[in-house]
């Protein structure tokens, strides 16, 4: 029987970690992910988890200890946010290249400039090309479920994984949650049995070479292949998870998409607000739908394009700027994935929610109205837009 509880997203991750009981956690405090190592080290202190906790002196070292531990043959986890993730940057690429399945809870927070502790996706979106798998969550339940699924995904794909949730919104917001029994979680994630590792009795291992030009490109091509191969692994793990819990997961969730004329694609907790707008518009007889992207890396370009193709106009929402003057990261990849289709919808980008700027049901309402206008006039207008900006010059 599932255990009903009321938990914040950070508590849910810490409980998932206790149930998984990794061999090593290396972590450094940073708002809003700090509670994860706090809760988890208190589990260790109370003898509830047999994990070696390394209280490092920086995030750079947190990721370095995870790399060392994972290469040594241990299951290694960490948690971070914002500037902490940025400080790990160098190592993100190294860990991915070494094909080490480190699992990291990312509690999304804006990158500094100016300093801001609230949610957006600029931290993990900035790391989108580092070779890490990335999974995002709408609710606390999804945060918990994703973290448990992340372990077998990463270990089968031999890739590191970021399990992302929205800072403060889910990380500190408390909601009802169904926990899985400890033994079931342990059975689900199994034991980590790497093929080769530094401490293997039979033979030594060398990790982290100087990869000269005759070899470097093959390393990168193999990483690219592993990202591709992760697609079926993610679905296999989701199916196994559904058999255990009844909760269904995929690359994305489609909400009211079957007969939708316009739709919106977004990532994370905003999908909850968006669904409320969908419900209200549906009550008014408007055929609107929503796609919530769960897996950003690997990017599910073919199925996502097919889903977006059901509508005539789609708003693609980015909670991160890329300062490219051509839209945010999700927009560019999602719109690119439409290119090969014969009949494609208009695709409009909205940058929203930066540094914790609230997005309301009314904002989604406005976006859907915009999409209907675009269809009506058969003209997308400027496809690179902002919503929720207070400065009247930029509205």
């Amino acid at each position, binding site marked *: 029987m599932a255990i009903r509880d009321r938990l914040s997203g950070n508590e849910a991750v810490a409980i998932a970690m206790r149930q998984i009981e990794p*061999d*090593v956690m*290396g972590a450094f405090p940073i708002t809003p992910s700090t509670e994860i190592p706090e809760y988890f080290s208190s589990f260790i202190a109370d003898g509830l988890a*047999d*994990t*070696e906790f*390394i*209280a*490092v*002196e*920086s995030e*750079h*070292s947190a990721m*370095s*200890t*995870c*790399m*060392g*531990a*994972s*290469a*040594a*043959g*241990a299951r*290694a986890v960490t948690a971070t946010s914002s500037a902490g993730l940025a400080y790990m940057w*160098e*190592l993100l690429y*190294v*860990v991915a290249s*070494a094909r080490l399945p480190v699992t990291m809870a990312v509690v999304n927070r804006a990158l500094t400039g100016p300093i801001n502790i609230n949610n957006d996706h600029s931290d993990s979106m900035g790391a989108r090309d580092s070779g890490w798998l990335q999974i995002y969550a709408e609710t606390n339940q999804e945060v918990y479920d994703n973290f448990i699924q992340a372990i077998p995904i990463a270990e089968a794909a031999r890739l590191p994984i970021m399990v992302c949730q929205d800072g403060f919104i889910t990380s500190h917001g408390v909601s009802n949650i169904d926990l899985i029994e400890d033994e079931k979680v342990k059975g689900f994630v199994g034991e980590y049995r790497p093929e080769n590792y*530094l*401490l*293997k*009795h039979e033979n*030594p*291992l*060398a*990790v*982290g*070479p*100087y*990869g*000269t030009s005759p*070899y470097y490109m093959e390393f990168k091509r193999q990483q690219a292949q592993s990202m591709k191969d992760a697609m079926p692994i993610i679905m296999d793990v989701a199916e196994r998870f559904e058999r255990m819990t009844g909760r269904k997961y995929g690359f994305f969730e489609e909400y009211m998409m079957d007969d939708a004329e316009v739709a919106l694609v977004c990532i994370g907790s905003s999908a909850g607000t968006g669904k409320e707008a969908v419900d209200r518009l549906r009550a008014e007889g408007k055929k609107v739908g929503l796609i919530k992207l769960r897996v950003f890396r690997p990017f599910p370009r073919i199925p996502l394009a097919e889903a977006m193709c059901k509508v005539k106009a789609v708003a693609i929402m980015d909670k991160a700027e890329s300062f490219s003057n051509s839209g945010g990261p999700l927009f560019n990849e999602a719109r690119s994935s439409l290119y090969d289709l014969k009949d494609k919808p208009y695709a409009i980008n909205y940058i929203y929610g930066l540094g914790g700027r609230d997005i309301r049901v009314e904002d989604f309402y406005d976006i859907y109205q915009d999409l209907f206008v675009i269809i009506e006039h058969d003209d997308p207008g400027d496809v690179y837009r902002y919503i929720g900006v207070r400065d009247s010059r930029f509205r």
Partner: protein
Amino acid sequence: MAYSLKKELEKKERFVGGHKLCAGCGAGVTVRAVLRALKPEDKAVITNATSCLEVSSYMYPHTAYTESFIHSAFANAAATCSGVETAYRALKKKGKVQDTFKFITFGGDGGTYDIGIQSLSGAMERGHDMVYVCYDNEAYMNTGIQRSSSTPRFADATTSPVGKESPGKIQNKKNLTKIIAAHNIPYAAQTTFLGDFRDLHQKAEKAIYTEGPCFLNILSPCPRGWRYETSDLAEICRLAVDTCVWPMYEIENGVWRMTYTPKKKLPVEEFLKKQGRFAHMFNKGNEWMIEEAQQYVDEQYEKILSRCE
């Protein structure tokens, strides 16, 4: 058992030929000498900071190490080793690893005195059972002889060049051994290649077989950066020690001890004149440089001597 270099050299090599280090380079000598102090029955995981040593010893698909090896980046060798050592404790406790492993990290002075000092300080403070070995060649040799905080005053380096308005490096060398000793770790020492390597060997053995974090700072000259004849490596080291430029001391559980005292302390010129990086100090009008260098060496040596019992 009494130390015998001959006996030591009969041990199986753990850092084998085929690496791409220069002739006359101190880094490879340091690695071989430290690893000889491992008991034959023990295994080791070697961690390396990005360095000449790293790119010369593990260029894919060849490694010069017979032991397991990990390199991740420049600033984080001590943290990477912390992770490996922690995993060892976790897996050993769970019965998943039976062998005895020792954890030895090598970093150059750039990766240790400068960019790696934070992760090194963290690892020493946390108390991992590991040895951090700095092979100190007093500049960023891998990128082309740029000055580091370990480069001595007046040395000609590519980012502290000698010129009409510049005497070479302006600042004195940082004393990293003292900084690390201030972490109150069980064992820290300075050594270099001298005679039959007894001093280096005994210090490496103590560092490896003392529980907890230990630190070795080993002067490991670089023929390209210091500009000496490759065959002069051992002579340069002897002069560094006999001029007291590089004092041979150890700090064991807070007790300071000088492990070698020159029979006759030589003037600092004897060390300087063998090296191209100090050649300008011997130009007419630059006598003050040698005087100040001598004064600094004397002061520093006295300070260490005064701490020794």
